[in-house]
C-alpha cells in the first residue's frame, strides 16, 4: 500500500478543481487552459508546495485523462567526448518531462537535441484537444547558463508545436530572457491554516480523527512543506495510533546528523574537532544531502546554541559561504571554511568575555 501522500483516495488531487488551496491560482490556470492561447509557464516555489501536482492538474485540464498514462524511457546521448549520458524521460502522448540536470554539465546537449526533436514533430494524434505538446523541464534552476541560452530561441521558434513548463525552486538562477518568455506562476507554500485543513482532510479519508495539538505540532515541524507534513502524519499514525498524549516527531536521519555536527562545533574548537566535523560533512555530502541544506540546518542549530552577539555574524558567514558553494566546485572547502570561521568567532568572543567578564 502506498503512503498517504501518493494515494488519490487519501490526498493526491488530480484535477484543478480538487486542489486544496490557492484556489485563485487554480481558477486562473483553468481559464488559461480553456483559452486556447496557452503560454510558456514557469512554476516556482519551495518544495512541497505543490508545483508538480499543479502542473499535472493543468495538463489534465488541457488534454484530458490521457496524460496520466505515463511511460518512462531512457535515452542515451553521446557527449562530444563520446561519453554516454543516460537521460530518463517521462512521457505521455501529450507531454514529455525531462530533468536536464541529470546530464550534469552536458545539459545543453540534452536541451538542444531533445527539445528540437520534439519541437519539430507535430502532434500526430488528431483527436488531441490541443495542437501542441507540452515539455516539462524539472529543476530548471540548476540549468547551466549555456542550456538556458539554448532554450531561448527554441521557445519562440517552435511556439506552434510546443509549450514549455519550467519547474524551479527559485527564479534567481534563471536568466532574464527566459523569465520574460514565460508566464510566472508562484506556488507559495501553504499557510498553517491551509495545511491544517489538508491534514484534517487526509485524516478523515484515512478514517481517523486528528487531535488539534498533533496537527499543530506537525504543521510547525514541517515548515511549510506539505509533502513532509503528510509523511509525518503517517509516520506518527504508525508510531502512536491514537495520536494523543505527548508526541515526539522523529526527525529524519540526516537532520539528526546535522544537529550532531552543530553540537560538535559548539562544544569544542580545535583543529582536531574540525577534522571530526569534516569527516561528518563528507558523510552527509556523499549520502546525497545537498550542501546548501546541510549548511542551513547546521547553521540554524548553531545559532540556537550560541550567544546573542554571535548570531548575526554566524548567519552572515553562512550566507557568504553558501554563495561561494554555488559558484565553486568543491563544496566541502566552503563548508569547512565556514566551520572554521564559526569556531574562530566563537573563540574570540569567548576570550573577550573571559577578559572583561563584567562588560
Amino acid at each position, binding site marked *: 500500500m502506498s503512503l498517504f501522500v501518493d494515494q488519490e483516495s487519501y490526498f493526491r488531487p488530480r484535477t484543478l478543481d480538487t486542489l486544496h488551496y490557492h484556489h485563485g491560482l487554480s481558477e486562473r490556470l483553468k481559464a488559461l487552459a480553456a483559452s486556447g492561447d496557452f503560454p510558456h509557464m514557469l512554476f516556482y516555489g519551495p518544495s512541497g508546495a505543490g508545483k508538480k501536482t499543479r502542473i499535472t492538474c493543468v495538463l489534465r485540464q488541457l488534454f484530458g485523462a490521457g496524460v496520466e498514462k505515463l511511460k518512462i524511457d531512457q535515452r542515451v546521448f553521446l557527449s562530444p567526448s563520446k561519453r554516454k549520458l*543516460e537521460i530518463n524521460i517521462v512521457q505521455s502522448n501529450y507531454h514529455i518531462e525531462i530533468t536536464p540536470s541529470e546530464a550534469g554539465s552536458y545539459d545543453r546537449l540534452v536541451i538542444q537535441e531533445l527539445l528540437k526533436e520534439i519541437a519539430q514533430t507535430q502532434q500526430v494524434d488528431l483527436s488531441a484537444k490541443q495542437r501542441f505538446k507540452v515539455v516539462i523541464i524539472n529543476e530548471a534552476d540548476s540549468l547551466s547558463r549555456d542550456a538556458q541560452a539554448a532554450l531561448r530561441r527554441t521557445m519562440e521558434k517552435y511556439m506552434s508545436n510546443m509549450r514549455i513548463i519550467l519547474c524551479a525552486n527559485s527564479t534567481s538562477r534563471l536568466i532574464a530572457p527566459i523569465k520574460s518568455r514565460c508566464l510566472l506562476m508562484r506556488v507559495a507554500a501553504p499557510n498553517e491554516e491551509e495545511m491544517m485543513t489538508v491534514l484534517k482532510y487526509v485524516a478523515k479519508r484515512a478514517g481517523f480523527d486528528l487531535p488539534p495539538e498533533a496537527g499543530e505540532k506537525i504543521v510547525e515541524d514541517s515548515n511549510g512543506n506539505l509533502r513532509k507534513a503528510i509523511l509525518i502524519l503517517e509516520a506518527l499514525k504508525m508510531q502512536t495510533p491514537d495520536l494523543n498524549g505527548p508526541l515526539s516527531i522523529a526527525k*529524519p536521519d540526516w537532520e539528526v546528523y546535522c544537529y550532531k555536527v552543530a553540537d560538535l562545533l559548539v562544544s569544542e574548537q580545535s583543529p582536531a574537532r574540525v*577534522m571530526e566535523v569534516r569527516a561528518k560533512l563528507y*558523510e552527509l555530502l556523499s*549520502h546525497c*544531502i545537498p550542501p546548501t541544506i546541510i549548511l542551513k540546518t547546521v547553521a540554524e542549530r548553531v545559532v540556537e546554541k550560541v550567544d546573542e552577539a554571535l548570531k548575526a555574524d554566524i548567519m552572515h558567514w553562512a550566507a557568504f559561504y553558501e554563495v561561494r558553494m554555488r559558484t565553486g566546485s568543491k563544496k566541502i572547502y*566552503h563548508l569547512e*571554511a565556514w566551520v*572554521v*570561521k564559526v569556531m574562530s568567532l566563537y573563540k574570540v568572543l569567548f576570550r573577550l568575555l573571559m577578559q572583561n567578564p563584567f562588560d
Partner: protein
Amino acid sequence: MKRKKSNIIDSENEEENSPPKKKAAISASKSSAKPRPLVTKVKSKKAAEDDDYDMESPPDDNEDDDSESAEDEDDFDIKPKSRKALASKSSTKKAPAASTSKSKAGKEETATPSKKSTDDPKGQLKGPAKKFDWAAKKAAQLAGPVAHGSKAVPAGALDALAGLSMVFTGELSSFSREEAIDLAKRFGARVVLQPSSKTDFVVLGDNAGPSKIAAIKKHGIKTLSEDEFLNLIGTRKGLGNGKMDEKTKKKMEKEQEEIKKAAKEMEKRERTDRAAAQSGKAIDPKMQLWTVRYAPQNLKEICGNKSQVEKLQTWLHDWSSSLKSGFKKPGKSGMNVYRAVLITGPPGIGKTTAAHLCAKLEGFTPIELNASDARSKKLVENGMNINNTSLDGFLKGPSELNSMGVAITDKSCLIMDEVDGMSAGDRGGVGALNALIKKSKIPIICIANDRQAQKLKPLMGTTFNLPFQRPQAQSIRSRILSIAFKEKLKIPANVIDQLITGAQSDIRQVVNMLSTWKLSNDTMDFDEGKALAKMNQKYSILSPFEITSKLLGPYVYSATSRETLNDKMDYYFQDHSFVPLFIQENYLKTQPSRLRNLEGPEKVMKELQLMDRAASSISDGDLVDALIHGPEQHWGLMPLHAICSTVTPTSLLYGSGSSYGGPNAMTFPQWLGQNSKQGKLGRQLGDVQIRMRLKVSGDKSEIRQSYIPALFPHIIKPLIDEGASAVDDVIGHMDEYYLSKEDWDTIVELGVDEKRDDAVLKKIPTATKTALTRKYNSTDHPIPFHKAQDLGKAPKKLAGGPAPDLEEAYVDDVIEDASDDDTKKDDTDDVAKDSLIKAPKPKKKAAPAKKREKSG
C-alpha cells in the same frame, strides 16, 4: 573581511615586537620585504648578467671586491658576505670599497651576541620608517630575514675543514640549513645526516631534534655553536699546513696514490689502443667520447653495485650447467632456475656496461637489442634466430674478433636493453619476449629503468630481478678523480662530490660534464662546480606526499629559508591537480610555528584565527579553480590558484608535527574517494527516483530527504523487528513504488547516523536478508521501464552484419518465402540459444508493467 585581516596582522606585529629580536625581525621582513620582491630580483639578475663576463677571468682568492660580487651574484643564491657588501653598497650609494666590506666582515667575525642584537633593530627600522626610500628598502630586503647575513664567512683556508665529518641540527640564526651545509662542504668537510661515533662536530642551532641530542650525548661528540663553527673555518689550518692528524693524512696519500695508479693504467691501455688504431684495427681513443674512452674494462672498474654484478657473473658462469639440468637447481643465489635476468635502476649507473662486461668475461657474444630496434611481437618471434649457435666462429676460426672487439664464440647472450621502452610501435613485444624467455636456450639479460612499470608485469614471474642502486658518491669519486688526473684537470675532491650529488650519482653525466668543462678550463673550484651541477640539474619530481610535508614542514617558510615565492609556487606546479587536494587534507595537522611563543588560551585563539585565514584562502582557491576548469577555462589564473590553494594556507600553518607514522600522519586526500562515492550514490538515487516517478512527483533530493526516512519504517524496519515473516509485506510496499531489490540496497546505503548501512544491515538477520532476496527473485514484479543499455544491443548486432547486396536480396526473397516454416523454426531455436534472452525473468516482469501503466 579585508579590514579584519589587516587588524590581525597588526596585532601580531605588536605582540611579536615584545619577544626580543628574532620574532621582530620576522614580522618586519614579512611586512616589508614581501610586497616587492620583484625589484631586487630584476636588479640582481641584471648585475649577474653584467658579471657573467667577468667570469672568464678566474677569480683570485676573494680578495678584491669585483670578483667577489661576480662570483656571488652569478647564481642568485647570494652568500652572506656579499649580501652585506651589497647592502652597504646600496645604502651608501657609493661604489663600495673592498676595505669597508672587509673590515665589517672582520668585525663580525668576532661579533658577540650582544653586538648582533644591536645590529638587528637597525635593519628593522629601515624597513617601515623610510617607506618610499627605495635604496633603503632594497638594503633592508637584502639584509634578509632574521639575522640573515649578520655574520660573515671568514676567509679560511680552502681545506680548512678537510677530513672532518660534521652534522647540522636545528636552525641556525644567520644561515639556512642548505647554506650551512654548503659552507661546510666548501671548506672540505664531510656532512652526514645522523651523528655517530665517527662524527667530529655537531653544529647546534635552535630547536635541535631530540634524537640527535641524545645521540650527541651518547657518543660524546663535540658540539659547536654557529659562531664557533665560523671561527673554526677561520682558524683551523687545513692539510697544507701539516697539522693534520697522521691517519687522515695517510689515508689521503693512499687515495692519491691509487688515483695515480689508475690513471697510469688508463694511459697504458690507451697507448696500446692507439697502436692498434694505427694498424687500422680499432678506433683511436682520442676520437672517442670520454664516456666510451673511460668505460670500465673489467669488473673492478664498475662503480658500486658490486654484489649485483657478481651475481650476474656467476649466473652467466653457471649457465651451461643449469641449462643441462633443465633449470632445476637453484644454486647459491637461487638464480639458476631463471633463464633471464631483469636489471633495473636509474640511468647512468652502469647497467648496460655491467651486462656487456659480464657477458664478455664469461665468454658470451652479446647480441644487443635496444629501443632503436623494432621489437614487435613478430620480430621478436621470428627475427631472433637465437636458438641456433652462431656460425661466425665456424667460418672465421676461434681467434677472430667481431666488430665490437669481442671474441666470437659459439655462445651468445641476448641483451634486451630498455625493455620499458617497448612501446606502441612494439605491440606485443613484451609478451613475445616473455614467451621467448620461457624456452630460451641462451641467457637473456633485460634492462629497464622502472621496475614498477605496468608493461613489465609479465616479466616479473619469468625473470630474476636484479635491482641496481645509485652508487654512493665515495665509490664514484676515485674513478672520476683518476679520469680528471689523467686529463690533467685540477679538481678537488669536494667539488667532485658536489658534481656527483648534483647529477644524482649519474656517472655518465658527470663524465660528460667534465669533458665539456675540459674544453675551456683546466681547473674547477667549488662555486664553478656548483654552477655546473646546477646547470645540468635533473629536476627531481617530488610526489605530492613529499611536497605536502615539505610545504607544511618547518623549513620552507622558516626565517632562514632561501626559497622565493616562485620556488614555493613551483611546488604547486609539480602536480597542480593533486597538491591543492593534499594541502586541504592535511593543513590542520601541524603545530604551527607561528604560535611557538604563545601559551594557553591566547595560543588557541590565535591558532583558530590562522586556521580561519587558511580555510578562507582555500575557499578562494576553489573559486579560482572553478574559473580555470569552468566553461571559459582561464588557465592564466593558475598562479593565483597556486597562491590561494597552496602557498597561503601553508605559509600560515607551517610547522612541525605532520609526519609519517605520528598521530597526525599525513593522509591521501579523502575528497577523491568521497566525491566518487557521492557520484555513485547520486546515480543510484537517480535510479530510485525515476522508478518511483510514476507514483511520486518529488525530485532526487526530495526523495532522499523526505521519502527515504518515510519509507524506512515500511520497507526496512519490519525486517529488523519481525524478521522473515515481514518479507511479504516489505515486498508489497516495494512493488507499490516499483522498487527493485537493488533499489532496496540503495535505500539502505543512503542512510546516515543510526541508519548507516552497516549498522542497519547488522540488525537484520542474515536469514531474513536471504529470505528477502529469494522471495523477491522468485516472484514477478512490476517494473516501470527497461534501462536503455539493457535493450540497446540487439539491433546493433543485426545491423552489424555484412551489407546486403540488393540484387541478390531479390532472389533471396523468393527462396525465403518457400522455406518460411523452416526459418520460423530456426527462430524459436535461436531464442533459446540467444544470450540476450537467456534470463527469462525480465520478460515476465515487463508484461505486467505494461498492464499497470495502462491501468494507472
